Every structure is written in C-alpha cells, then in structure tokens.
C-alpha cells in the first residue's frame, strides 16, 4: 500500500503547485501560457491513455479537439446554448463519433492505423474549413461566450487559469485511478501481447474502442474549454501539425506516464515561447532539442531523468579505470 501513498503525495504536491503558481506568475502573458499548458496537458493525457497505455496510435486527435471546440462554439455563439450544456453535448457527440469510427479502424495496426486516424483528422479539418455557414470557414468563429457559474464569469486570465487547471487536475486524478485498475492493467496487457491478453479473456477489440472513445471525449472537453476561454476558434489550430505535436508531447513526456504527459505538454508549450530569443532560427533549435531529447532520454522526461541519472552515476563510479 506504500505505492498508493506515494501517488497521493505526488498528486497533492501538484495540486499545491497549481494553487500557488499564480502568486509568483501573475503577469497576463505568462498566465496565458500556463492556461495553454493546462489545455495541452489534458490533450496529452487523453492521447497517452490510447498511445502509451493501450499502444494504439492516433494522428487525428487534433480533430477531436477541434470538434469539441467547434461544437461548443457553434452551439453557444450561433444557437445561444448554455456553455456548460454545450460542453456536455460536444463530449457526447464526439464519444459517439469515436465509437462509430473506432470499431472499423481499430482493427488496423501500426502504420495502417496511423494512416486511418490521419485521414480522419484531415476529413474533420476539411469540414471546419468548408462548412462556412456553420463554422465561419477559414476566417473562424468568434463571439463564443465565456463559461460562467451564476454571476461569476471566467473572463480573466487568472480565472481561466484556475478553471482549466481544475479540469486538468480532475483529468489527471481520474486517469491515475484508471491506469492503476483492472482496466489499466488490461490496456497495458494489450500493449505487451495482444494474443496473450485475449487468451486470458481480455476483450481487446472492445477495450481498444472504449479507450479510443474516452480519449476522444477528453480531447473534446479540452476543445470546449479552449473555445470558451479564447472566445474565438479557427481551423488552423486543429490541423495535422497539431496532431503530430500532441504525439510529440506524449513521447517526449513519456509513454504510459500520467505525469509525463504533463511534462511533455509543459515543455512543448513553453519551449517555443523561450526560443523566440533565437528569432528566425527558433524552429531549427526546437527541432535539434527534440532530436537530442529522443536520443538521450528515450523513455521520455518522466522516466528519462532517473535513467540518465543512474547512467551517469555508473559511468562516474567506474571512472577512467574501466579502460585499463
């Protein structure tokens, strides 16, 4: 039961950090970056459940994120729905779509699954661009209202920060519970040996579709939050590039690591901001850093640091005498 306590302490430390961070960081621009870290954390977490735990790739997750944002945006801005209700509808619709699409495409494996999800993402992206009457097309959809509780509206950076991070913490807590349960074990079993998992009675096909739907629904919630905090959405935010960025967050952060998703999301959100100092060369430095990280921290940030530490420790202990 010691492990359980460690998990609780880790989670409490994170919660505390989230609570006090705005005391140090209270400037609008930086808070806004932290809002994005929060949204990206939910997305990376959602994708990690599918990619890191169940071992199934998706190159279309930006599409689910966008669907959440657009369904919420259109329902509130155009049809004056209550934003909370719109968020719920968005999650429900995306869950339904993911189930419908998941059954046929999750029969595919590896590169073929990557291609199918890539196609799905592109189709969704095209709809955002072309359904101009509904989505506003390439110029976007504006006038999306903020979320509110009674008379309290989430319309400032600090309010949005706490809103987003409340959702992120809940998502992290629920995911931690999930991965440490029979369902989490079954997911990792499918990842390690699908045939052995099936033979002991894990319904691999159904479970893969269920986790795909859960992952899509969580991404839709993140999209909905994005729409209501930004009050404006445009297709460019939900393209193929962003799907790849999400996969990068998960891999850099650490496959099958809940906190790794957080680290990956934080790094890939903050890094481009820091690299502005390099001006036109920022994209080159960014690429180089990613290459170096995958080379030297192959398990991702979450597992990589302990690994790297023990590597250098043994190297140091052996010292130069090992050559002799």
């Amino acid at each position, binding site marked *: 039961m010691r492990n359980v306590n460690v998990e609780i302490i880790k989670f409490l430390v994170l919660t505390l950090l989230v609570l006090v961070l705005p005391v140090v960081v209270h400037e609008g621009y930086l808070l806004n970056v932290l809002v994005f870290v929060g949204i990206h954390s939910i997305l990376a977490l959602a994708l990690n459940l599918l990619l890191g735990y169940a071992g199934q790739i998706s190159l279309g997750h930006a599409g689910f994120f966008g669907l959440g944002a657009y369904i919420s945006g259109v329902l509130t801005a155009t049809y004056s729905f209550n934003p909370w209700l719109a968020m719920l509808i968005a999650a429900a619709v995306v869950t339904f779509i993911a189930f419908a699409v998941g059954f046929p495409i999750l029969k595919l494996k590896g590169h073929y699954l990557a291609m199918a999800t890539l196609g799905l993402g592109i189709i969704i992206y095209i709809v955002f661009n072309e359904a101009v009457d509904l989505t506003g097309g390439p110029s976007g959809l504006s006038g999306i209202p903020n979320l509110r509780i009674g008379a309290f509206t989430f319309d400032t950076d600090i309010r949005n920060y706490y809103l987003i991070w409340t959702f992120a913490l809940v998502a992290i807590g629920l995911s931690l*519970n999930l991965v440490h349960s*029979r369902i989490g074990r*079954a997911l*990792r079993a499918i990842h390690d040996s699908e045939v052995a998992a*099936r*033979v*002991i*009675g894990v319904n691999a096909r159904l479970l893969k579709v269920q986790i795909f739907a859960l992952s899509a629904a969580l991404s839709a919630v993140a999209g909905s939050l994005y729409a209501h905090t930004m009050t404006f959405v445009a297709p460019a935010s939900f393209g193929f590039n962003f799907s790849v960025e999400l996969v990068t967050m998960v891999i850099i952060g650490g496959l099958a690591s809940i906190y790794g998703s957080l680290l990956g999301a934080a790094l890939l959100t903050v890094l481009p901001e820091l690299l502005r100092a390099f001006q036109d060369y920022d994209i080159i430095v960014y690429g180089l850093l990613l290459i170096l990280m995958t080379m030297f921290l192959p398990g991702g940030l979450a597992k990589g640091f302990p690994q790297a530490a023990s590597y250098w420790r043994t190297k140091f202990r052996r010292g130069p005498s090992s050559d002799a």
Partner: protein
Amino acid sequence: MLEVRELTQRFGGITALENVSFTARKGEITGVIGPNGAGKTTLFNIITGIYIQTSGSVHLNGEDISRVPAEKLAARGLVRTFQNIELFGNMSVLENVMLGLHTRSSSGIFSCMTKMPWHLKEEKSIRQQAFEWLEFSGITDLAGQKAANLPFGKGRLLEIARAMAVNPSIMLMDEPAAGLNNSETHMLAALIRKIRDRGVTVVMVEHDMELVMDICDRILVLNLGRMLAEGSPREIQENPAVVAAYLGEG
C-alpha cells in the same frame, strides 16, 4: 471435459489435420505427441479459437465452442500457455497474475476512474487471490519483479499461475518443458500433477518423452495430420506404428 470431433483443417492445398477425434477427460492429463509438422500446434490453435477449422467441431463440457472467439473462451473455462511464453513483460509478476483474474472481475471504466467502493473491494480481492496463485506456483518471492526480467523457467511458472487464476476447467499447454533444465522439468511435472488433482483437464503438446510417459494418463499420437494412435503411455510405447514414425520407416 474436452471433446474433439472429426476435425479437419486445410490451408490451401495442404491438409494440416485430417479427421482427428479424441476426448480429454476431467482429472486426466492428455499428451499430444508427434514429429514436427504433425499438426499439434494447428490442433491447439483451432481449439483456442485462433484458427477456424475447415470441418469438425470442438466441445467443452458438452457445449460446442467451435466458433467462439479466443477472448470469450477464458470465461468458459478454457486457457492455454504458449511454447515461447507470452508474458506481459512491462508489468510486475503480481500484475500478470492479477490479469488472469480479469474475467472474474467486472468493474467498468467509470467505476475504475472514480474508485467506486465496489471497485476497491474487487481490487483488494483480486490482489489477494493473485498472491494465492503465486504461492501455488511457488514464485511468491518474485511478486514485485518486472516479468520481462524473469529467467525462462520462472517465466513458465508465472504463465501457469496466470492461467490458473482464470479458474479454468481445461488447460492446454504448448510444450511446457521446452527450454527448461532437468530440475525445472521435475518441478513442472509436480506442478502439472497438482493442477490435475484440482480437477482441471490438462492437454499438453510435448517433445520431452520422459515427461510425457511419466505424467500423462492418455496419449494421442499425430503424424502428418492424422491420428496414428491413442492410448495409455504403455500402449503407445509398445505400438509398432508409433515406433516406426519416430525412428523412421525403413
């Protein structure tokens, strides 16, 4: 009880199995032997739902399971082990056995995420039962180890513990002694007897004749996809057709 009736399997023009029938009785160990290419693994893959046979049928405790997919068979009491051991390498030894209890627990995604009280109770009972099966296989001390780090012999014991956790009425073992040394094989023999004595029907494919003759109650001999002989170890050893198949017809 497992009953195989007139099973035939063709792959294109090749007949892998032809008209094979046998019955494995409760509380007995049935050995399936034969030279390479005799159709032993094909037979196992059909019984466990990985292949679907060309004709014939398989019955488990009287029910036709010919077209039941692999993942539904565990809940009906049929499990198997693999020649090359299929473990969940990135998980602990204990977690591997806990997975064996998957079909005997039912918490869904939502009760797992929200830690519902019934889920926590179930989790506790799964953990406890998993420890009992580790003890059954004699590997309790390895509970916390990563499965991928186990030596081959211990991995075999873990695979058996995981299969037993499913609470099977029949266990199929594909070359359980392959890759084991002498003392490990002796331990395996004792363990397989222990499994039989719990009322589990055991069917095993095996090349180690000493082991087969030692622990099997009945033996089925396959050669080139056909049944060559069936009987007690003594009858098989004295059967001239079997001797010819093994030593080569001259």
